């Protein structure tokens, strides 16, 4: 009896689906909405590309801001019927949370031959045997270096380095000790220390000492080392733009680096968009690249940066079939449109060489401002894998206490030792209510 019910249900489903499929062929084109938060133009190019080749499925871009309000807006819209068809989450935690809440449509049915493990090298989007999407982007972090400044200082950029060596190098690129002189380096506008730890420990072990997310890992000496490293760069050796100057002056990495107020910056590939935008960021120096420094001689254990642009089909979509097709195209071939803007793909179908070529040929003469040897070697160094987080509950809280404390360390109000003590204590406090 149960089998009969199941079969008839299945038949109904297939029937309905084929009806929908037939209808969508006959009727007006289906419109699907893509929610994304990265730069408009490359996304729009991808959408135009798709629309041209798929007259029956027209895609539309809705931009949201990847900040707290923007994510809330996406969350509520996902709850509403038929608002969103495809959406990109930034940060795996956001993606996982939405999948866990039932806001992503399983894709197995629509894309039976889509083998993400094979094509993306990760099974992280397969949850409970169901496939919920794929990462569009692979975003490595590395050091951008002003080649002209390096030559003037008579230095040579090493192929790998520790933070100690990096500090010396940055010191040689620092001109003057005042707050408005050229600094050796600018680090991201968030504490970034947890990222540094994760390059060594991997995403889960950065925050948690256990497997169930109830014991924080702030005891690990790397935490203190990371906090101390940024503190020393900024306040002791004074070779980096200080955290408080970044906050007070609304400084951005690209604004400072391309204006030659710092000769190096550490960041991801999103900065290429500024490198090639000579109207907003006029500069005439060549940029070269080096890997993110590590705490020990043998380099970071994981590739700095991470997978991104986690793309999923909304559970409340009225056109899941079409949305799934779009998704598959977007994270694979369609992503070429974004690669041309310097946002590199996670798909294994793109070889590093193809990606580099696509980008360099898309930017024309500006390619002369890029040290192409270092670009190919550093940016596309796939000898190590990105680490991937599988635990997310409690991470926002731990990350918050960390950024509360990190600010105090960077300004010298708290020593890194006191900071770690406080983190350990508070880590316990914020995890307690989640682990009862």
């Amino acid at each position: 009896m149960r089998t009969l019910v199941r079969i008839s249900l299945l038949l109904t489903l297939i029937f309905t689906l084929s009806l929908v499929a037939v209808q969508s062929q006959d009727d007006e084109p289906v419109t699907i909405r893509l929610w994304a938060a990265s730069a408009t133009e490359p996304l729009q190019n991808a959408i135009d590309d798709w629309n041209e080749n798929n007259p029956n499925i027209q895609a539309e871009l809705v931009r949201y801001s990847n900040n707290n309000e923007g994510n809330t807006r996406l969350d509520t819209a996902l709850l509403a019927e038929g608002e969103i068809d495809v959406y990109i989450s930034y940060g795996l935690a956001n993606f996982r949370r939405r999948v866990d809440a039932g806001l992503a449509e399983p894709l197995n049915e629509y894309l039976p031959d889509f083998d993400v493990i094979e094509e993306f090298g990760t099974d992280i989007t397969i949850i409970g045997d169901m496939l919920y999407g794929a990462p569009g982007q692979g975003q490595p972090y590395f050091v951008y270096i002003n080649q002209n400044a390096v030559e003037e200082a008579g230095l040579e950029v090493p192929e790998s380095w520790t933070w100690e060596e990096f500090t010396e190098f940055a010191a040689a690129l620092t001109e003057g000790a005042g707050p408005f002189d050229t600094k050796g380096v600018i680090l991201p506008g968030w504490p970034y220390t947890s990222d540094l730890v994760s390059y060594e420990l991997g995403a889960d072990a950065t925050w948690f000492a256990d497997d169930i997310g109830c014991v924080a890992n702030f005891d690990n000496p790397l935490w203190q080392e990371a906090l101390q490293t940024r503190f020393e760069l900024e306040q002791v050796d004074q070779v980096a733009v200080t955290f408080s100057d970044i906050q007070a002056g609304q400084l951005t990495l690209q604004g400072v680096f391309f204006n030659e107020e710092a000769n190096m910056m550490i960041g991801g590939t999103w900065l290429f968009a500024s490198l090639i935008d000579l109207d907003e960021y006029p500069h005439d120096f060549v940029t070269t690249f080096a890997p993110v420094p590590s705490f020990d001689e043998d380099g970071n254990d994981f590739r700095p940066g991470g997978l991104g642009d986690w793309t999923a089909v909304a559970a409340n979509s009225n056109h899941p079939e079409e949305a799934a097709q779009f998704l598959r195209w977007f994270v694979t071939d369609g992503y070429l449109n974004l690669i041309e803007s310097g946002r590199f793909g996670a798909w294994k179908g793109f070889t590093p060489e193809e990606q580099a070529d696509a980008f360099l040929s898309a930017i024309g003469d500006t390619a002369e401002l890029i040290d192409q040897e270092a670009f190919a070697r550093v940016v596309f160094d796939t000898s190590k894998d990105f680490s991937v987080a599988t635990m997310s509950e409690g991470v926002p809280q731990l990350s918050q206490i960390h950024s509360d404390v990190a600010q105090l360390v960077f300004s010298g109000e708290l020593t890194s030792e006191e900071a770690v003590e406080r983190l350990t204590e508070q880590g316990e406090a914020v995890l307690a209510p989640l682990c009862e």
Partner: protein
Amino acid sequence: MASSVVSPVEIPKPQTNKGRLRLRETLVGYMFIAPNMLVFAIWVLFPVLFTFLLSFAEWDFITGLDAIEFVGLENYAELPNDIWFVDSVKNTFLFTLGVVPAQIALGLLFALIMNNQIYVAPAIRAMLFMPYITSPIAVAAVWLSLFNPRGGPINQFLYQIGIQDLPGWLASSDWALVALIIIGIWSGLGYNALIFIAGLQSVPDELYESAEIDGAGLWAKFWNVTFPMISPTTFFLLITGVISSFRVFELVAVMTQGGPGTSTTVLAYHVYRTGFVFYRMGYASTIAVALLVIVFIFTLIQWYLNQRYTRFMRPD
């Protein structure tokens, strides 16, 4: 509330003429508040009641209503152990203490000056009111530059007048809240002054004249005439000022995100972060209810004190 209000016990008896009038008045009263109450009930009262219910539950709002999990008083038990809650109560109190009295005192001072027939008064009034309508994000950007500890105009000025140990302002956990208080006073000043100007304009001239006949000086006139006459205005600004500074959110969200450390984490910001960053809407509601209780007690105390000392809320 007023002492002579009609209590529900006095529901009119319909059989008498007076009773019929009373019933009529009751009906008209309900009819008059009905449109207001309908909108209010749907968009304010219901969400507030829902929040109250949620304060006893664990819930990530994207999981849908079915996933609400009631946990009894657990959330309330968590409050005293919550590192951010304890600090944010302290910070919110300090912020309110810093902003509200200063805003009222300075607002009154400016109103007195402006009322004294200065030149170009309309233009100055408009200038004072500008912070109220300027884009908050522009306000934040400008104050960040002004407060820049190194090279910002404020510290340059302090340096010029010989202060050696310059404050770190928004970069320092000792000074960040002070900076926010300064901005808070700045942004509410024009609004307070404006309401005081109006209050002052309505004080009858005869009162000052008779005070002068009694030989009162400036201070005596202020203390015996102006101050009591405008106390209803002061009370209104006090109540709405306390409510809005306890709910301060935007200033923190755009300027400091609660930092450095927890030095500027205020209640409303903690509520927001708990609900939308930590995804604990249930516990966020608990904090909101706690805030409601704290402010409501304050409001009732103010109300009671005011009831005793002024003619505010005089029933008809």
